[in-house]
């Protein structure tokens, strides 16, 4: 008898287990949107983080004073209006009336002041507006809706680089004062955004609830609030194959973490939409100018002519990368299309001729020689990222074609950067991501950043001057021209060879609406994601 009982229990359990086909957590109620996150945010504290996945989540919860439209123009968000003093050293901002935080408290100038004080103190991204760099030396709050920023020196980029950036998302002053800093963005976060932070189960999911009072979305958003979904669930799925499986099975509504390897499978799925958009990330090659052979401009130009960027985009990026001409691309604020005419085209014959002009002759083994020296160099790049490792191998074979022998040495990201800073390399393939031409180009190419982030070790006063002007000139036109000059110098020098920019990939269920709105913006701003996404 008991044997039958056991059998019955087993059958019942199996039936229970194999019944329902709905996934757990994020129960697929129509009022919930489940997003797949490929990396867990370290925290979602706008002031402490500088990680992309943290930015994605916190941008639903907190808001800066301004935001950017698709032409990269500054648009008021929490601010009603603003005025600069003629010397660009004082900025007066008036806040919108009637905006409240998630805890019901009204937004006031005191909250803005407390947030910026915290931003200047703790944010790794606040360098431009720190007092010691001529940034914010004082803030006045004449009334509850007005805040006056006083700068030590003209800071023409402050609005676009800081005040319109989610890292200056405004928090209530009382919340900052009463919450331990380590708890902000981990156990609690209060903002004015379209979603309210509800729960974070470490390693599993972050849950946000809709802010039903939200009505002040940016003017360029088709939905100014509240958001369409009652709940926004970010599921953390670090393994690429698992993420692809979750999207394929329909358990994840949308993810912005699609890898090139999963792309084909998702494209073949009739229930999934895959979209691409340019990123502002650029993969580039840099020469160590302390090496004698690179000090000859012809040699550098020959190397630039030897690189077939199309092949790298095809083979290293599996077709989701695009060749780029400059160290910044069209998705970056400050990009200059004119840089194309200065870029070196793939031309092996020209490369060989230039090397011959520089005195290099092929030896018996086909490798170039000059005065007894063999043209043999070491290329370093990241071991743990496929697209970099592959790019290294492709460049190795392309330079072999012109008689340069390359030894590829890879290590994980941190170790590779350490080696680059120590100058222990000849050629490096790196990447950087920044949405603003300035201060990005300064980080990569200004002599003040040798060797911390300018690995070329090539001080160039002309380039420094152009970059400084692009950063500090009061006149918009003068800054723009200086930035163009800098881009031209960088590309012409052939010290840096821009390679490929990857594309943002998005995979979503066909039932997810609002993707067309995202598609109108080259970089799918997160604010828009929160407000535009809907269920068809």
């Amino acid at each position, binding site marked *: 008898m008991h044997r039958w009982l056991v059998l019955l229990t087993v059958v019942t359990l199996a039936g229970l*287990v194999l019944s329902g*086909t709905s996934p757990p957590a994020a129960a697929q109620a129509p009022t919930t949107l489940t997003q797949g996150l490929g990396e867990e945010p370290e925290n979602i504290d706008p002031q402490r983080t*500088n990680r992309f996945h943290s930015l994605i989540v916190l941008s639903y919860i907190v808001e800066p004073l301004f935001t950017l439209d698709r032409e990269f123009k500054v648009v008021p968000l929490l601010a009603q209006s603003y005025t600069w003093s003629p010397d660009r050293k004082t900025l007066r901002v008036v806040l919108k009336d009637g905006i409240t935080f998630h805890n019901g408290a009204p937004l006031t100038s005191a909250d803005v002041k407390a947030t910026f004080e915290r931003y200047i103190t703790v944010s790794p991204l606040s360098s431009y507006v720190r007092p010691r760099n001529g940034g914010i030396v004082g803030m006045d709050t004449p009334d509850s809706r007005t805040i006056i920023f006083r700068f030590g020196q003209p800071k023409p980029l402050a609005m676009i680089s800081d005040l319109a950036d989610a890292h200056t998302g405004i928090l209530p002053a009382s919340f900052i004062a009463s919450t331990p800093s380590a708890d902000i963005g*981990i156990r609690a976060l209060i903002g004015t955004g379209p979603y309210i932070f509800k729960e974070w189960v470490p390693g599993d999911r972050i849950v946000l609830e809709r802010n039903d009072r939200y009505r002040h979305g940016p003017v360029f958003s088709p939905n100014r609030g509240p958001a369409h979904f009652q709940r926004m669930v970010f599921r953390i799925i670090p*393994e690429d194959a698992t993420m692809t*499986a979750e999207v394929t*099975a329909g358990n994840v509504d949308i993810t912005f973490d699609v890898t090139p390897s999963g792309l084909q499978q998702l494209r073949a799925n009739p229930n999934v939409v895959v979209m691409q958009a340019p990123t502002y990330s650029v993969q580039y090659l840099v020469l160590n100018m302390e090496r004698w052979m690179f000090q000859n401009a012809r040699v550098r130009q020959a190397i630039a002519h030897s690189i077939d960027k199309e092949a790298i985009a095809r083979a290293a990026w599996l077709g989701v990368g695009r060749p780029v001409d400059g160290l910044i691309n069209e998705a970056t604020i400050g990009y200059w299309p004119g840089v194309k005419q200065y870029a070196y085209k793939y031309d092996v014959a020209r490369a060989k001729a230039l090397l011959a002009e520089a005195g290099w002759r092929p030896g018996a083994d086909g490798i170039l020689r000059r005065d007894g020296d063999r043209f043999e160099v070491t290329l370093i790049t990241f071991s743990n990222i496929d697209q970099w490792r592959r790019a290294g191998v492709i460049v190795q074979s392309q330079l072999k074609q012109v008689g340069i022998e390359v030894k590829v040495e890879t290590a*994980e990201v941190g170790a590779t950067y350490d080696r680059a800073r120590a100058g222990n390399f000849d050629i490096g393939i790196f990447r950087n991501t920044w949405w603003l031409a300035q201060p990005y180009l300064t980080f990569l190419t200004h002599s003040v950043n040798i060797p911390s982030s300018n690995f070329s070790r090539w001080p160039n006063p002309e380039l420094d001057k152009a970059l400084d002007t692009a950063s500090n000139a009061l006149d918009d036109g003068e800054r723009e021209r200086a930035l163009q000059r800098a881009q031209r110098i960088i590309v012409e020098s052939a010290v840096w060879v821009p390679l490929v920019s990857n594309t943002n990939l998005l995979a979503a269920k066909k039932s997810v609406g609002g993707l067309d709105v995202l598609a109108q913006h080259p970089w799918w701003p997160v604010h828009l994601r929160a407000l535009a996404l809907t269920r068809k």
Partner: protein
Amino acid sequence: MSRFVFQRLLALVPVAVGVTLLVFSLLHLTGDPIRLLYGLNVPEEIVQQRREELGLNRPVPVQYLLWLGRAVRGDLGQSITTGDRVVAMIGARVGPTLELTILALLVTLTVSIPAGIVAAVRRDTWLDALSRIAALFWVSMPIFWLGLLFILVFGVKLGWLPISGRAETFWSLDGLRTHLLPVLTLGLPPAALFTRLTRSSMLEVIGEEYIRTARSKGLAERTVIVRHALRNALIPLLTLIGLRLPWLFGGAVITETVFAWPGMGRLLVDSVLKRDYPVVQGIVMAMAALVVASSLLVDLLYAYVDPRIRYD
């Protein structure tokens, strides 16, 4: 008995110190966590300021001793990347890992003990051959691959089970369904080894004099096997469990990654990649403690299974 337990717990101290010292030294050899965390866009002055705040500019031995001093008082410090307290981070992750490994061990034993007994009792029959083939198959199966295979078949193709994630509690329909694939992935491969060991151990015991005596008394075969043979055959199995426990925790790291399981293993992988010294140290210590505690439990079970073993 209590003295034995105390001695074993005392042994945890040098283990913890040795392991954390090794991990600390190795991690510090790999480079700078702050630059890795902040990337290139952050100026050196800010990186330097953060290093000073965290005491990372001090000599490594000093950093270790300071960490050890705090750890003794139960303070494992703060995560470099999140700023959260390490004790809180581990506290949130230890439950799911223990749940996964214990359930996986139960699966291993539930599958392997009956299979091993059958293979021994039905020696050289088709059942024995089948168990050998199955064992060979499972022992050759890498956990990572098996997990993805399960996902593909049961999650994507058939749509029967969730692909990843973990429900709040095991004691619910969702809980049962989310646990099934990761537990089987971690529990089935070691079952092959356990099955073969149970078989050989049973064969050895079945050949003993006292088993023959039991049979000659006219006891039912089932009674002979279950009551008399199995208990003695289990002793080598307990040894193997003790030896395999660290492997189970190691396997959990992979399983948790594949199934997006919010356990300690995944936190360890993330923290190693980010060079988050305090978190890695804390997890290594917690895992060492778990392994030592599990081994202690196995030792105590010896005494229960084999009356000849005493720890007085």
